[in-house]
């Protein structure tokens, strides 16, 4: 089991300002937008949990957290 197997991407929509930084730099292109222009996970199966979205989100609205 990889160190991040029990982690998943969490999104705090209230804080997302829809800047698109995470969407642009996601190496697997698994992020997109919802109807309100806020970030949405489109394909969690293919997320490699690299954390690049978290490290560049200026609003702390997307991050890797423990699975519930």
């Amino acid at each position, binding site marked *: 089991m990889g160190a991040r197997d029990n982690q998943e991407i969490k999104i*705090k929509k209230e804080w997302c300002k829809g800047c698109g930084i995470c969407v642009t730099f996601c190496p697997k292109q698994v992020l997109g937008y919802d109807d309100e222009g806020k970030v949405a996970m489109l394909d969690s199966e293919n997320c490699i949990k690299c954390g690049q979205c978290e490290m560049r989100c200026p609003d702390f609205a997307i991050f890797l*957290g423990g699975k519930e």
Partner: protein
Amino acid sequence: MNNPIVEKYFRMDNLPHIWCPGCGNGIIMLALAKAIDSLGLDKDKVCVVSGIGCSSRAPGYLDFNTLHTTHGRALAFATGVKLANPELEVIVISGDGDASAIGGNHLIHAARRNIGITTIVFNNNIYGMTGGQYSPTTPNGDLGTTAPHGNIDRPFDIAQLAAAAGATYAARSTVYHANQMEKMIETAIAHKGFSMVEVISTCPTYYGRKNKKGSAANMIAFLKDSFIDVKVAEKLPEEKKAGKFLMGEFKKEEGVVEYTVAYESIIERLKK
């Protein structure tokens, strides 16, 4: 449900912050919190000081001892804090205008003294808070509200300026290179002496819009493509370096006496 680092080191009541969508300030602030976490510092032993500007609002969101002071004077206040409390890790957050225009004199003298303060410059190449006036780091030819026909000044290289003035650690990173930036901040805080981390950031609202740089993501993609590490650059032929900017660690000097240590030794000597 929050990022645990944010919950641990931020004043949750003050979030979300007021910065514009895509403003790089938040990226640097998170990296700073992560660097402090990696160092395992006691929150009560950290003091974050800022001047005035969009970037200088950062201490309002951070849950440490914090001081939001006057424009350009963060290092002057921080010098007082450090002299009175040498055991504190004093961290200054400053904009490019705050640090190198109105506060430029404080910057060179704090560096010259090698006082144990870590300065993180949020360099967005413009005065963000006041609406887009050019700063000492606005590139030559670029537009600002005070340079409607193009800036005729030559820009400062803040990291090298600090190094030349006597800083014993000087490095530069960008908000694209957030992992590397976090490591540099960690090294800078652990360093004994004046340390400077200049982070190239984004102001999509003023610098970006005035200079037609596109979205925040476009601006960050530019940083990705334009900055190369000094160590890599050393091995590259000249043509590959054309139009590129340097980042990385420019200076790391050990063994230079730190200012509060020198001050303390005078006190000890006079007690005898």
